C-alpha cells in the first residue's frame, strides 16, 4: 500500500471507464435484441422502476464507505410501507402527516441500527441481519401476512405516476438524492471522515474525528432513504404491503460494489455508484424484454440471478486482476 496518488487515480479511472463500457455494451445489446427497449416510454419506465433501488444504493454507499453494511434497508421499506398504510387507513391521518411520520419512523429505525453499531460497537452485519428479520417481521405481523392497503389520496399517487418537465417525478427525486449524496461524500468534511473511518477507525479516532457520531450518520440516512423509497414504492404500485422492497438490499449492495466502492471501506465514489445503479437498472429491464425470456416469463428470476452472479464477479474482479498483474510483475 505504498502507491502514490497518481496510480490509484488511474486505477479508479480505469474501473469506472470499464464499467461504463459494460453499461454501453449492455445497452447496445438490449437496444437491438430486446423488444421495445429503446423507446422513450421504456426509458421513463426504467427510471420509474429503479428509482427506489437507486436511492437505497446511494444511501448504502456511505455506509459501505465507513466499512459497514446495512442488510435491513429492504425490510425497512416493507415496515415503512405498512406504517404509512396503517396511518392513512386505520388511524385516518392526513396524507401529509402520514408521510412525515413515515419518514421519522424510517429515521428512527435507522437510528436503532446506528445506536447498536456505533455506540454499543456491535458488528454491523449481525445487527442489520437481526433488524432485517425484525423489521420485516413487524411488517408481516401488523398485516397478518396478507393485508394490503389500497386506495390513497390522488395527490400522493401522482408521485408515482405523473411527470414533471417530461420526466417521471421519481427521476427528479433520484437526481436530488444523487446530488445530495455526491456533495455529502465528495465535498464535505463529513464525507472525508466516512472515508477515514472506513480506511482505519483507530486512525480516524486519533485524528480527532468523532467516530461514534460519524459512523451513526450513514445508518440514519439509510433509514430515512428507505422510508422515502417505501413511499415511492407505495405510490407506484398504489399499494402499501409488507413485502415491499424484498431483495432490494442485495441490488443496492451490488450497485455500490459494482460501482467500485471497496466492500472493506475507505475507497469509492458516488459517481461510480451511479453507473452501477444504471447497469443494474438496464439489466433488470432489458433482460425481461429479450424475446426468449419474455416468452418464458422468467425475467424476474433471471435478473435477480444475474444480479447475484454480477456481485460475485464484481467482488472477485479487483482481487483477481491484482493477483494477475502481480504475477506478471515478478
Amino acid at each position: 500500500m505504498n502507491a502514490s496518488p497518481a496510480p490509484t487515480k488511474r486505477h479508479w479511472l480505469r474501473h469506472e471507464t470499464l464499467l461504463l463500457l459494460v453499461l454501453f455494451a449492455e445497452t447496445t445489446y438490449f437496444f437491438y435484441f430486446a423488444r421495445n427497449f429503446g423507446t422513450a416510454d421504456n426509458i421513463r419506465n426504467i427510471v420509474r422502476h429503479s428509482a427506489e433501488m437507486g436511492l437505497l444504493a446511494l444511501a448504502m454507499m456511505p455506509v459501505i464507505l465507513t466499512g459497514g453494511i446495512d442488510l435491513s434497508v429492504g425490510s425497512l421499506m416493507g415496515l415503512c410501507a405498512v406504517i404509512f398504510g396503517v396511518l392513512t387507513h386505520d388511524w385516518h391521518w392526513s396524507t401529509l402527516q402520514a408521510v412525515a411520520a413515515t419518514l421519522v419512523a424510517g429515521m428512527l429505525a435507522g437510528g436503532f441500527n446506528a445506536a447498536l453499531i456505533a455506540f454499543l460497537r456491535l458488528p454491523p452485519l449481525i445487527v442489520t441481519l437481526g433488524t432485517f428479520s425484525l423489521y420485516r417481521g413487524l411488517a408481516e405481523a401488523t398485516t397478518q401476512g396478507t393485508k394490503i392497503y389500497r386506495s390513497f389520496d390522488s395527490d400522493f399517487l401522482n408521485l408515482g405516476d405523473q411527470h414533471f418537465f417530461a420526466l417521471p417525478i421519481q427521476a427528479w427525486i433520484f437526481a436530488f438524492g444523487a446530488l445530495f449524496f455526491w456533495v455529502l461524500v465528495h465535498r464535505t468534511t463529513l464525507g472525508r471522515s466516512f472515508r477515514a473511518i472506513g480506511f482505519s477507525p483507530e486512525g480516524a479516532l486519533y485524528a480527532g474525528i468523532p467516530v461514534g457520531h460519524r459512523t451513526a450518520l450513514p445508518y440514519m440516512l439509510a433509514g430515512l432513504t428507505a422510508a422515502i423509497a417505501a413511499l415511492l414504492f407505495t405510490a407506484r404500485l398504489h399499494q402499501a404491503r409488507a413485502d415491499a422492497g424484498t431483495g432490494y438490499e442485495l441490488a443496492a449492495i451490488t450497485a455500490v460494489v459494482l460501482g467500485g466502492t471497496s466492500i472493506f471501506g475507505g475507497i469509492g465514489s458516488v459517481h461510480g455508484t451511479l453507473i452501477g445503479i444504471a447497469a443494474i437498472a438496464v439489466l433488470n429491464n432489458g433482460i425481461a424484454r429479450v424475446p426468449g425470456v419474455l416468452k418464458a416469463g422468467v425475467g424476474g428470476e433471471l435478473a435477480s440471478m444475474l444480479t447475484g452472479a454480477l456481485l460475485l464477479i464484481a467482488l472477485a474482479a479487483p482481487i483477481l486482476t491484482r493477483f494477475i498483474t502481480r504475477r506478471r510483475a515478478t
Partner: protein
Amino acid sequence: MKRYSRELTVAIALSALLVLLAIFAPHFFQPQPLLARLTAQVPVLVLTIGMAVVIISRQIDISVGSQFGVCAVVAGLMSAAGAPLGFALLTATLTGTAMGALNGFLVAWLGLPSIVVSLATMVTWAEVLRLFQQGRFINLPPRVQWFGFSQLVGQASLLFFALGLLGAMAYFLKNRTGGRHFYAVGSDSEAARLAGINPRGVTMLAFVLMGTLTGIAAFCNMVQSPQVDPKCGVGLEMKAIAAAVVGGVAVTGGRGGLWGAFFGLLLLATINPALTYMHVDAYWEKAIQGLVILLAVIADGLRTKRSAA
C-alpha cells in the same frame, strides 16, 4: 462456572419456558406431537452444527437456506426417479459440499467478506432453483417417507442420528486438535498462522463442512414428508444463526460451543409453539427471531465491554 454462564442462562430460560407450558398448556407434552415437533427440528439442528463451526471461525453463511432448497430438490428428484435412498443422500451431500466449497473458495482464497459472498450465493441459488423448479412440489414414492419404516421408527432413528452427530461434533470441536483449529482461526487468524495453522484451509473446511451438513439436513427433511417443497429452505439460515448466537456462539469468532447452540435451538423452537398456546399470532415469528438475535448480540456486546473495562 463463569465459562458456561451463557449455556446456563439459556438452559434456565428453556426450563422456565417448559415449566410455564407445563402449567398453562400441559397438552404441549403429549408424546406424539412432542416427538413430531422434535423430529421437525432435526434438519435445523444439523444446519446449526455447521453454522456454529462457521461462526466460531469468524465467518457467516447466509446462503444455507437456498443451498438447503437446492439439495432438497436434488435428493427429491433422485428419489422420484427411483434411485435408492443412499444414492439420494449421496447426491444431496455432494451438491451441498460443492456449493459450500464455492463459498469457501471465495472467502478463504480471494479474501472476500463472507456476508457479501453468501448474500450473493443465497440469491443466485434461490433464483436458479426458482427458474428450474418454478415452485413445483416433487411427489416422492412411499418408500422414502420414514425410510419406508413406521413413523415412530423413522422419527427415533432421525433423532438418534442428530444427537449422535451433535455429540461427535461437540467432542471434536472441544477436544481434538482439528476442532481447536476453528477456534484458533476465529479468535486471531494471524496468531493461528504463526502457530503453524493454515487459516485459509481451516476457513475453507468450515464452509465445506457447512455445505456437507446442509446436504444431510436437506435429506433429513425429505424423509419426513411425502413431498419436497422447493421453498423448504427459505429462512432456515436465520434459524440456524439465531440458534447459534442465542446459544453463546460469539459473532466475533472463537467463542462458544455446540451444546450452547443446541440449547439455543431448543429455546427458539419452544418459543413459537408457546406463543401459539398463549394465543399470539404465528405472524410474529420472524420479528421475534430478529429480536432474539439482537438481544443475544447486545448481551454479548455488554459482556465484552464489561470484561474489557
